[in-house]
C-alpha cells in the first residue's frame, strides 16, 4: 500500500529529475485539463501523445501493474469518447459525453501525479525545490506531506482490518456508521504520528536559520532531455497554430 505514494528506492528503474516531472505535470494541466489549443488538429494529436506519456513513465519506473491499470482505463475512456459518444442519442449521449470529457481531461494529470509521488524521494524533491529557489517555508511543509501520505495509508489499512474483525463493513450491522468509525481512530492516529514526527524532525534541526545543504544529486540526463523536448514540442505546435502557420 505504501508504494502508492513513496518511492521504492531499491527498485526504481529510470530516474527523472523532479523538475522534469513538474514541467510535464504543468503541461498536462494546461493542455489536457485546460484544453488549450484544442482548436488545432495538430495540438489535439500532440495532447493525446503527451497524455499517454505518464503511462510510459510508469513503465520506465518498473511500476508495471499501475501502468497497465492506468493505461487500460485511459484507453477505454478515450475510446468511448471517440467511438461511442457520437453514435448514441438523447440523454445517454450527453451523460456519456460529460463523463468522458471529465475523465479524459482529469486522468492524465492524475496518473502523472501518481507517478511523481511514487517515483520521487523526499530528498530529491527538496533538492529540486532548492535549485528552483523556492523558499523553505513552502518546501518543508510539502516535503512533510510526502512522508505523511504513506503513513496515513498504513494507518487506514490497519483500521480496515480492525473493522473487519468487528464486523463493521458494507452490508454488516453498522454499515451506516462506517465513515464515522473510520475517521475517529484515523484522526487520533494521524495526529499522534504527525506530532511525534514533527518532534523528531525538530530535534534533528529542521528549520534552523542555517542554509540547509543536500547530499542528493539531481540533474538532467538523456531521459530528461527526451521528455522535455517531447513536451516542449506541444507548446511549439500551439505557437505555430496561433501564428497561423498550421491549421
Amino acid at each position: 500500500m505504501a508504494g502508492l505514494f513513496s518511492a521504492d528506492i531499491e527498485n526504481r528503474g529510470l530516474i527523472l529529475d523532479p523538475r522534469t516531472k513538474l514541467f510535464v505535470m504543468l503541461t498536462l494541466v494546461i493542455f489536457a485539463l485546460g484544453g488549450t489549443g484544442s482548436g488545432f488538429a495538430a495540438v489535439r494529436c500532440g495532447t493525446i501523445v503527451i497524455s499517454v506519456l505518464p503511462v510510459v513513465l510508469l513503465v520506465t519506473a518498473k511500476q508495471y501493474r499501475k501502468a497497465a491499470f492506468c493505461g487500460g482505463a485511459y484507453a477505454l475512456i478515450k475510446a468511448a469518447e471517440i467511438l461511442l459518444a457520437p453514435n448514441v442519442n438523447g440523454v445517454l449521449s450527453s451523460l456519456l459525453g460529460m463523463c468522458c470529457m471529465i475523465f479524459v481531461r482529469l486522468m492524465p494529470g492524475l496518473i502523472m501525479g501518481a507517478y511523481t509521488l511514487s517515483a520521487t524521494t523526499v530528498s530529491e524533491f527538496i533538492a529540486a525545490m532548492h535549485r528552483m529557489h523556492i523558499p523553505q517555508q513552502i518546501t518543508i511543509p510539502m516535503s512533510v506531506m510526502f512522508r505523511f501520505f504513506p503513513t496515513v495509508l498504513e494507518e487506514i489499512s490497519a483500521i480496515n482490518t480492525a473493522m473487519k474483525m468487528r464486523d463493521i463493513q458494507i452490508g454488516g450491522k453498522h454499515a451506516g456508521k462506517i465513515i464515522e468509525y473510520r475517521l475517529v481512530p484515523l484522526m487520533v492516529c494521524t495526529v499522534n504520528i504527525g506530532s511525534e514526527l514533527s518532534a523528531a524532525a525538530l530535534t534533528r534541526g529542521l528549520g534552523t536559520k542555517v542554509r540547509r545543504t543536500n547530499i542528493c544529486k539531481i540533474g538532467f540526463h538523456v531521459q530528461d532531455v527526451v521528455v522535455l523536448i517531447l513536451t516542449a514540442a506541444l507548446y511549439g505546435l500551439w505557437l505555430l497554430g496561433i501564428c497561423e502557420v498550421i491549421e
Partner: protein
Amino acid sequence: MSAAASLKNVSFQYANGDAGALNELNLEIAAGECVLLCGSSGCGKTTVTRLLNGLIPHYYEGRLSGDVTVMNRRISDTAIEDLAGVVGSVFQNPRSQFFCVDTTAEIAFGCENMGLPEAEIRARIDRTVSGMHIHKLLNRSIFNLSGGEKQKIACAGVAAMLPDVIVLDEPTSNLDLDAIAELREILAQWKAQGKTIVLAEHRLGWLKGLCDRILLLENGSISAEFNGETFFSLSTDALNRMGIRAFQSANNYLEWKTGLYPIKPFTEHGSILLKHFTYSYGKHKAIDIERLAIPIGAVTAVVGHNGAGKSTFTKCLCGLQKNFRGSITVNGTICRRKNWTKQSYMVMQDVNHQLFAESVLDEVLLGSDDSETQTALQILEKLGISACKDRHPMSLSGGQKQRTAIASAILAGKKLLVLDEPTSGLDFRSMEDTAELLRSLDSDITVLIVTHDMELIDRCCTHILHLENGTI
C-alpha cells in the same frame, strides 16, 4: 568532570494532564556519564528526556519552573533546532521518527539541516556506517526495514550529527532480544567515545555493565539513586517492589526447541487442529505447517526471532490474511473459514486502530444489541474498567485501551483471542495486570500471545509455540 547537563529545582506540569509531571527535581549529569531513568509509567522519566532535548518547553506545552542547562546552554533560551548538534534523540516509535523514505537520506538529514558541506556529510555517513557495521542498510527503503533495523538507522542519524549528549526514550519497546543486543553494542561504542547518554527505559536487563548511575523516579521526583554495580545485583523481588521489571527472566524460550509444548500443567479438553497450513508471499513460503493442535482454553505464547512468521501465522489464523491454504478443525468438525474469522479477534499492538465508539460501554456493545448492556457491565467489572465506562476510549491509558478491546471481544463471543505484543511499553504493574487478566479468562477462550516478553510468558502462559522460518 564538568557537568554535561544540570536540572535545578525543576517543576513541570503538562498543559493537558497530570501524568509525567515533575516536582522540584534536581539532577546533575557529568560529561561522559551514562544515566538510566526508570520507574512506572507516568513517573516523569520521559519528561526529563524531553527537557534535555528542548522539546519541553519549546514543543510540548506546560508550566515550567527552575533551570535546565545542557552543555552550558540554558534550554529555555535556546531554540530547539539549535540544540540539534548538541543533543541527539532516539525515540520509541520507529514509525514516527523518520523524515525521509530512504535510509541514506535519513542518516544525512540532521547534518543537512546543520548546513554542513556535502563532502563532510558524506565522510560522516561513511564513518558512522562503518562504525556501526550497517553497510547493507544503506540505500534501502525505510518501509522495508524491520523494527530493529529502523532503530539502528535512527541511531546512525543521531550519531552522524556528533552530539555531545544523546537521550533515548524507551528505544527497545518494539525490539526483540537480538536487536536489543545490537543496540547495546551501539551504546557501548558511544560510551567509549565519551558521549553523555541518558536513557528512559522499562526493560533494564540489557543495560547491565553499561550504566554508571540509575535513578528511580516516583511522582516526578527522584526517590532512589544507585550506582551500576549495586543496582544490577538487586534481586527480582526488590525490583518488583519498586515497580520495576526483572532484569532477565529465568527462561529464554527462544533457545528452546521449536514446536508446541506445555510449560505448565494443563488439562486438555479438545483442540483447534490446523492441517497443511501454508501461506506464500510470491514464491517465498512464509508459513508452512503440516499439522498443529492448539489446545482449547490454553494461553499459548507464540515466540520466535524477528521474521520467523509469527505475525503472518496469527493473521492467517484470524482470517485477516487472504490466500492462505489449510484447514481448521475444532473438536473434530471442520470449520468454514468465514465462520472462523467471526470467532476470532486480534488485539493489535497499536490498540488505537481498533477503538471506534464514543464511550467504553458503547465500544464494548458495538457488535451486539442493547439488551446485552447488563452482560457488558459485568465484563467491564471483571476486567476492572467499569469506573471508566462513560469515558472516551481514546482518553484511556494504554493498558485500559487494551482491556476495552479484550472486553469487546469477550462480549462478541469470540473464541480465539490473539494479542500482538500486548506488553510492549508497559511497566511492571500493567504487565502483571495483563498477565492476571489473561490467566483468568474463561476456559473456552483460546488465547495466543505473540510476544518477546519472557516475564509475561512465565506469568500467564501454559504453552509455548516456537516458530522459526515459518514452520515448527
